[in-house]
């Protein structure tokens, strides 16, 4: 069992620590939740109402923040005028597509690295991990040149491939640990029973599914929130939500209402995903750490 009761004794220092931790949690919650709250509330306010502020020092005027008539016109304008439906689709396809490819290829590579013994295995594994050590911006120029040469710039397949380049090493790295924790005798028993090696591999996928699930979510998260690849590789025909949102900052004006609505559209799916799978995410991320 990972957690247990910690025996504590009440001392002046422990009382102080308890008070300080409550203060910290309140400040932290405000720090993290307040921007999201303001973004959501602003997205359903008319622009004039969004910029209504109480006078400095006037704490009684705080009610002005909540004195508004909700409107969804920013969302309507976003999807009708700014074609955010297309960008939403691009984000979904590029995130899910790269996650799916990374999981399929990554699980097979991770399995091979976990089970097979061959010369250069440790070097190969280190090379795979090392591709994630370099900052992406450092390789952006040559990567852009390669993608342009291949005619992939501004295309959805190009963006999927770009995301896969940094998701796949991560998949191999994470999933190898999960495969290492599955006893090899299970596959041997399957092969003696009549399975081929590939069938035996498929047979143990359910045993690493928490890890695969956790990795899929992280993969989707990375791709969904990415700006760099999307702005350079995906520019034009494969614009995604983060890039499209930055495009709402025009030289002539900043479309605050639409920006706030775009922020909600971009963050809500990931927040909902996190809420739905949070229990499995912790299980999946910690399962590989402890030998059963």
């Amino acid at each position, binding site marked *: 069992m990972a957690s247990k009761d910690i025996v504590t004794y009440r001392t002046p220092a422990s009382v102080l620590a308890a008070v300080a931790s409550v203060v910290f949690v309140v400040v932290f919650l405000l720090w993290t939740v307040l921007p999201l709250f303001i973004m959501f509330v602003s997205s359903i306010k008319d622009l004039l109402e969004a910029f209504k502020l109480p006078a400095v020092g006037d704490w009684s005027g705080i009610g002005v923040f909540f004195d508004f008539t909700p409107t969804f016109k920013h969302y309507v304008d976003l999807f009708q005028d700014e074609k955010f439906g297309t960008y939403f689709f691009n984000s979904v396809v590029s995130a899910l597509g790269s996650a799916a490819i990374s999981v399929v290829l990554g699980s097979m590579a991770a399995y091979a690295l976990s089970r097979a013994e061959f010369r250069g295995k440790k070097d190969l594994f280190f090379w795979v991990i090392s591709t994630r050590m370099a900052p992406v911006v450092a390789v952006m120029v040559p990567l852009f040149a390669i993608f342009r040469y291949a005619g992939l710039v501004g295309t959805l397949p190009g963006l999927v491939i770009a995301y896969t380049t940094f998701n796949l090493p991560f998949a191999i790295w994470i999933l190898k640990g999960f495969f290492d924790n599955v*006893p090899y*005798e*299970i596959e*041997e*028993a*399957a*092969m*003696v*029973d*009549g*399975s*081929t090696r590939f*069938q035996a591999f498929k*047979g143990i996928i*359910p*045993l690493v599914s928490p890890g695969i699930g956790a990795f899929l979510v992280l993969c989707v998260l990375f791709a969904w929130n990415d700006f760099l690849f999307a702005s350079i590789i995906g520019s034009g025909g494969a614009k995604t939500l983060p890039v499209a949102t930055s495009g709402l900052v025009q030289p002539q004006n900043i479309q605050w209402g639409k920006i706030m609505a775009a922020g909600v559209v971009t963050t809500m799916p990931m927040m909902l995903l996190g809420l739905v799978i949070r229990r499995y995410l912790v299980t999946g991320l910690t399962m590989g750490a402890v030998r059963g």
Partner: protein
Amino acid sequence: MTKVKLVDVWKMYGKVPAVRDLSFECESGEFLCILGPSGCGKSSTLRMLAGLEHISAGDIRFDERRINDLPPKDRDIAMVFENYALYPHKTVFDNMANALKLRGMATDEIRGRVQKAADLLQIGALLDRRPQELSGGQKQRVAIGRAIVRNPRVFLFDEPIGHLDAKLRGHMRGELKRLQRELATTTIYVTHDQLEALSMADRIAVMNEGVLQQIGTPQEIYNHPANEWVASFVGEPPMNFLDVEIGTGGSETEVVVRCGGMQVALTDVHRAALDGARGGARLGIRPEALQVSGTADGPHWTAGTIYAVEPLGGDTLVEVAFQGGRVLAKTSADFVGAMDDPIYVSVDRTKLHLFDSGDGRALT
């Protein structure tokens, strides 16, 4: 019913030989145990039989057909692993049915075979459970059930009862032996426990450091060990070993054992065997071949001191110290004696073993 034959089999892990020039046969329907300490090559041998390891050199034949290059799924063998290797995400039924489903058997037939095997192993009530809900003994039965539903040509057991408690191990030894008799399937069983091997096997192949030391029935291995190593490994409590110095006197050749002057008179067979010793010789005496008494009851009783007494319930082990050494004797439960008491020891000379001091081979 299949005969299994190993001919000059080697297994190398890099440059390290795990199995060296191994040759033996397991007859059709026979229960053969491969016995040896950890690292002796017994599991490597079993895994080569299963096709889970490549054979570095030599041949393995099933009914004279060379199977070196056949993958495990095509050898028609069933294996029970040391850690059971059950599929944790499947029920007991699905674990047992897995091999039959892979072979495309009809659902009704699968159900019938699984139920029959489950009834035989008394696990019929567990078919809907998952492995994590089972005890060790139940898991082991499921692993055996997974093997027997297939009706294979050969059973391979890799220390299947090693993780059970002593009482359950004792119970399962009898169950496994009976099961093998009923099924009459050729069985090769690997263990490091000499009690398991002696009690269950038709024949035992004893291995050490990758080399086959001896193959024979349990009685042959116990009563006529081929060398000093086999003699020391098989038998609980272990055999006593004493250096031999030959003296002559009277009408018999008196063998004086270098252990405080313990006197042992040899039979003609032993005397002739000593002539075959290239260097010195070592005398092996099993604890049950030694008699202990408070008085010297004859001419060949040697005086010593009780070093330790271990009552075992049905027997008593008495360790006797002589000048420069000790021997362990097994006597009856009603033995009376305390530490440092004087004691006399005699040897049943029909149960002596002589070994060459140089290479350890048996001289008798």
